[in-house]
């Protein structure tokens, strides 16, 4: 054989080996995940690297804590839950890729994951196509109800609308909207504007900044010019730190111009610095300070596992709840089979750190109590108002006359 031809052949053989190695990675025994064998595999898919890791890593931690607790209590259907953790890397196609991998390679029973709307939208077709389940633990912009997704965070009528109700109750007549430039803030602000129009509030301005933006002096100057009664803040991640630091140093106080934030929880408060955000309002369904024995055990367990300095927050709690809600549904269904679990889930009610949550079988969202909180100088959030009872999820805002035409 001529020497020149040998090398390509060698390379071809090497490539074939590589490819077949990939093929082998599809371990046929992986099929055990969905029920046979001694464990039940579940996927956990959050960004552990990239810009979104800031928020998502602790949600993963909370979900792993829930799995550990359930296993300690005997698991489900007599089997231990085995988490398979993947990194979404703050990249939406990666979320889709890893979701597919968890479903078809690891054969997981369900997946807990996602944070941004974009990651959810990327994963949605994967789960619908494979008829697999995703539990999505973050408050979001609504207008969605996939039969293969369970939404354990708030939809708009459980967070944004109560926030607006609260401002109205406080006599705030004019608001200014500040948000990051992506889907959640834009949709949220559309809802806010419709609400304001119907409730005699004026929207003095609407500003969006790119994700990761850190220069807010101009936005603050616009606020100073517009002098709104309150600011509705839908900024995400890093931008909140810059916004609040710069808001404070410009001399605008929370008393003169309070902001209501929907993406600032205990964890973000630490990064912003409590002194920079103290006195401002936030809207969530859960705070670390929420009273109740169930929350006390959750906070204690979380600090016990991850360190006393750690705080708990709404998305973490929603992720934690998601695992328990799934486990409860599996127990009720007596199987991890997707359709059975979906069927069994309707109406499941659970005592969680935020209080009682119930799965709404109609849209696979959960009933949640809305809570408005005031950030304290120590970094904790004090509840100043709540909705009294869990609010029925209404992702398309069908029950709100002013919202017709939004979807």
């Amino acid at each position, binding site marked *: 054989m001529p020497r020149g031809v040998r090398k390509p052949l060698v390379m071809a053989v090497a490539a074939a080996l590589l490819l077949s190695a990939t093929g082998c990675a599809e371990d046929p025994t992986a099929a055990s995940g969905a029920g046979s064998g001694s464990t039940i595999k579940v996927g956990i898919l959050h960004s*552990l*690297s*990239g*810009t979104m*890791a*800031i*928020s*998502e*890593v*602790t949600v993963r931690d909370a979900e792993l804590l829930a799995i550990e607790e359930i296993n300690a209590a005997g698991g489900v259907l007599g089997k231990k839950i085995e988490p398979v953790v993947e990194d979404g890397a703050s990249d939406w196609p990666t979320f889709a890729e890893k979701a597919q991998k968890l479903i078809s390679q690891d054969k997981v029973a369900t997946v807990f994951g996602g944070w941004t709307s974009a990651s959810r939208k990327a994963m949605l077709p994967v789960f619908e196509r494979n008829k697999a389940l995703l539990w999505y633990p973050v408050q979001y912009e609504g207008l969605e109800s996939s039969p293969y997704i369970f939404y354990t965070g708030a939809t708009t009528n459980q967070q944004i609308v109560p926030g607006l109700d609260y401002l109205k109750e406080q006599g705030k007549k004019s608001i200014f909207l500040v948000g990051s*430039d992506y889907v959640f803030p834009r949709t949220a602000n559309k809802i806010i504007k419709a609400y304001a129009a119907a409730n005699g509030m004026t929207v003095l*301005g*609407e*500003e*969006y*900044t*790119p994700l*990761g*933006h*850190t*220069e807010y*002096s*101009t*936005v603050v*100057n*616009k606020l*100073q*010019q517009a002098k709104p009664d309150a600011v509705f803040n839908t900024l995400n*991640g*890093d931008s*909140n*730190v*810059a916004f609040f*630091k*710069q808001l*404070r*140093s*410009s*001399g605008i106080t929370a008393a003169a111009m309070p902001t209501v934030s929907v993406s600032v929880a205990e*964890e*973000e408060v*630490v*990064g*912003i*610095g*409590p*002194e920079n955000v103290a006195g401002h309002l936030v809207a969530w369904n859960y705070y670390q300070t929420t009273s109740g024995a169930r929350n006390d055990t959750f906070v204690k367990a979380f600090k016990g596992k991850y360190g006393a300095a750690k705080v708990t927050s709404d998305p973490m709690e929603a992720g934690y709840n998601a695992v328990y809600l799934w486990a409860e549904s599996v127990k009720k269904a007596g199987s991890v089979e997707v359709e059975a679990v979906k069927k069994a889930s309707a109406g499941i009610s659970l005592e969680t750190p935020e209080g009682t949550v119930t799965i709404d079988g109609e849209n696979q969202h959960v009933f949640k109590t809305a809570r408005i909180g005031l950030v304290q100088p120590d970094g904790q959030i004090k509840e100043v108002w709540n909705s009294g009872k869990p609010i029925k999820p209404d992702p398309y805002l069908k029950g709100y006359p002013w919202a017709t035409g939004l979807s």
Partner: protein
Amino acid sequence: MATLNQLVIGASIGAVLLLIALGLTFTFGQMGVINMAHGEFIMAGAYTAYLLQPLVGTQSVLVALPVAFAVAGVLGLILERLAIRHFYGRPLDTLLLTWGISLILQQVARDIFGAPNVQVRAPGWLTGGLDLGGVRLPYNRVFIMVLAVGCVVAIWLYLTRMRHGRRMRAVMQNRQLAAVSGVATERVDQLTFFIGSGLAGVAGVALTLIGPVGPTLGTNYIVDAFLVVVAGGLGQLRGAVIAAFALGILNSFVEFWVDNGASFAKVVVFAVIIAFLQLRPQGMFVVRTRALS
């Protein structure tokens, strides 16, 4: 009044841009190294302030300035010694190398300090603001502007008055000539990298006053920093100063006059730089070496 305010804001944005770009004018300007890890040196400076906090309390920002300079400088020196020095003569490759390093440094920060942002408290005396006839300039902005100007003056003095500095300038202007004139260019390169990276550390400390402190801190600033250097001209202190303030003011006005202008401003800045390069292809100031005859 709003206009005046925007001018002040523009200047303070310019000061931030200048601080983050200053180090790059050296490493990019003199050595042609496209250091994508420059952002992570900024991050290292910010975390230095965070680490010093429990030791020295709320004055940590002041103490952190020299310490962060040293920390980031040493990081830069290590990078130069271990990797970049293999790359002289092919500067573009350094981009890929330093990008890999920046990925690693981010992950290191995530593993050491955790993924969420951490808090660096500003000293009490930086919390107020200066009233300039109705325009309020926060003290922390004043501090950053003073710091930026201070850094520029220090560098200028260093480059013109000190022997080491003059050597650095010589290498910047004509590496070969400097080498044959007996300047140890390799030593100068190390020093340049130390100073350039150290300046990133200083910028990092300053940024704790106005922005987030987290593993991805650097990625928020790196592109802006490069644009300043490109618009200013390679290795040109004067160009970098003018470019930083021009871009800062441009940014602040576009953002103010256009509704929802923050995104738009970034696009405008890019367009303006492209247009500007049509007039001045080599940046604002070019070292002129007359054609040799």
